[in-house]
C-alpha cells in the first residue's frame, strides 16, 4: 500500500513535467484536454456517490435513514448559491455540512461537539477567498481580441481557453447565479447568445462572436 501510494508522487510529477520536458511548441489538442477535465469529474463522482449512498456498505437511499445523504441534500442549495466563489463553496460546505451532521447526531442523542480551531481556519479561508484571482479574469481576456497587429504576438502567449476545461479548483468558470442562467448555460439551445459566454462553448465560436463585435473589424468586413 505504502509503495503504491508513494509511487503516485513520481507519477504526478511526471504528469506535471512532461509538457515542460517534452513539448516544445505544440499545444495539446482541445479534445484531449477536455477529456482530462472530465476525468476529475468522473473520479469525484465515483468517490462521492458510494460514500453518500452506501455509508455502511449497503444501499441506503432514504435520506431519513441516512444522515450523511440528508446533509448532502441540504447543503446542495448552498453550493449552488455560492458556486461563483470556489473557496467560499469549499469552506461553506464543510462548515455547514459538519454543523448539520453534528446537529443531527445531537438530535439523535449524541453529544454535540464544537471544533473551534477547525471552524476558525475554515472561516479564515472564506474571508480570504475574495482576494484570490477569479477565474473570470483568466477567461475574459481572450474573448476580446486586440487589433490585428497584436494578434501575432498574442498567439505566443499562454492560451487561457484550456484553463476552464481542466477542472482545476480555481480555474472553473462557473455559470452566473440563479437557477435560470444555470439551466440556460447547460442547455444553450434556449439562448444561443448566452452559449458563446459559457465555458463549454467551443473557442472557435466564442472568438468568432467576439470578432464580429469588434468595431474596427466589423467596419473592415463592411468595407
Amino acid at each position: 500500500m505504502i509503495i503504491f501510494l508513494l509511487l503516485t508522487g513520481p507519477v504526478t510529477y511526471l504528469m506535471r513535467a512532461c509538457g515542460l520536458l517534452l513539448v516544445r511548441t505544440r499545444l495539446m489538442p482541445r479534445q484531449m484536454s477536455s477529456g482530462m477535465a472530465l476525468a476529475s469529474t468522473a473520479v469525484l463522482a465515483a468517490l462521492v456517490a458510494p460514500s453518500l449512498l452506501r455509508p455502511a456498505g449497503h444501499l441506503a437511499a432514504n435520506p431519513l435513514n441516512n444522515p450523511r445523504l440528508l446533509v448532502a441534500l441540504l447543503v446542495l442549495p448552498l453550493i449552488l448559491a455560492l458556486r461563483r466563489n470556489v473557496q467560499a463553496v469549499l469552506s461553506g460546505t464543510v462548515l455547514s455540512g459538519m454543523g448539520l451532521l453534528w446537529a443531527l447526531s445531537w438530535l439523535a442523542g449524541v453529544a454535540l461537539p464544537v471544533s473551534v480551531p477547525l471552524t476558525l481556519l475554515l472561516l479564515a479561508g472564506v474571508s480570504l477567498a475574495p482576494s484570490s484571482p477569479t477565474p473570470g479574469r483568466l477567461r475574459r481576456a481572450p474573448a476580446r481580441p486586440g487589433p490585428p497587429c497584436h494578434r501575432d504576438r498574442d498567439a505566443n502567449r499562454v492560451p487561457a481557453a484550456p484553463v476552464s476545461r481542466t477542472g482545476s479548483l480555481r480555474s472553473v468558470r462557473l455559470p452566473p447565479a440563479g437557477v435560470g442562467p444555470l439551466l440556460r448555460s447547460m442547455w444553450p439551445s434556449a439562448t444561443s447568445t448566452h452559449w458563446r459566454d459559457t465555458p463549454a462553448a467551443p473557442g472557435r465560436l466564442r472568438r468568432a462572436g467576439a470578432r464580429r463585435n469588434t468595431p474596427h473589424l466589423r467596419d473592415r468586413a463592411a468595407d
Partner: protein
Amino acid sequence: MEKERWQPSAQGPIAAKHLVAGSAVPALVVEAPTPSSWRASFLAGLHACVPLALSIVPFMTVYGVAARAAGVPFWFAQLLSVAIFARTQLAAVQLLAAGAPGIVAALTAALMNARYIVYSMTLAPQFRHLAWYWRVLAGYFITDETYATLATRLQQRQEAHPQWFLFGGGGLIWLASQSGTALGGWLGQTLPADWSLDFTGTLVFLALLVLLSFTHRAALVTAGTAGSLAVVLADLPWRLGLVVAIVAGLAAGLLAQRWHSASASAEGGA
C-alpha cells in the same frame, strides 16, 4: 517615431490600451516591461500566491484530519503530502479508509492529477528556452494555484524568468500545504473519533463535484454515469467497481461531448 504609451490593465494585454499619444487609433505592438532580474520574478510569484497560500491551509487541514480519521500515520500523511503535492491525496486517503487496495487508491489519485498534463503542455512554450534542469525543477511546482497565477501573469506581460515566478509562488504554496497537513494531523490526533471528521473529505468532494458537473452537459453525463455505476458496482472485489465506474463515466462524457460537437457543427452548417 511617435512615442508609445503602455497602460497596464487588469484585463490583460489584449484589452490593454495600446495607443499612440494623442490619438485614438490602436498603435504598434508595445511590449510590457519585464522584470529584469530573477529576484523580481521570484518576488512577483511570491506576492501573487500569498492569498492563495493562506486559503489553502484550511483545505490541507481537512486532509490532515481525514488522514488521521482514516488511521493513516501522521508521518505517512505528511510524506504523501510532500510526494504528491496536490489535493488528490485526500481522495487516496478516503479510499484507504474505505478498504481499497493501495493500487486502486494510487490509480484514482493519478487519474485526478491528469489535469496537470494540460497545465504542463500549456505552459511548455514559455519554458522552451530554458535549460533542462530548470524545467525539471519547475515541473514540481506546477499546481492549480501556481498555474492560475502564472497563466494570468503571462496573459498580462512577457515573463523573462517564468521558472523563478513558479518557484516563488510554488514554494509558498508548498509551505502552506505542508503546514496545513501538519496542523490537520495534529487536530485529527487530538479530536475524538466519534466526531465523524472523515465526512469533511466527502463534503469537499461533493462541493467540487457540483462545481465541475454543473458547467456543461458532458460533465453532468460523466458524473451521473460514474456515480451510479460506482454505487451499483461497489461490491466488486478490490474496489474494482470504482475503476470501472471512472472509465465508464469518462467514456460516456466523451461520447456526450462528441455528440454535442457534432450537433453544434451541424447547426452551424445549416
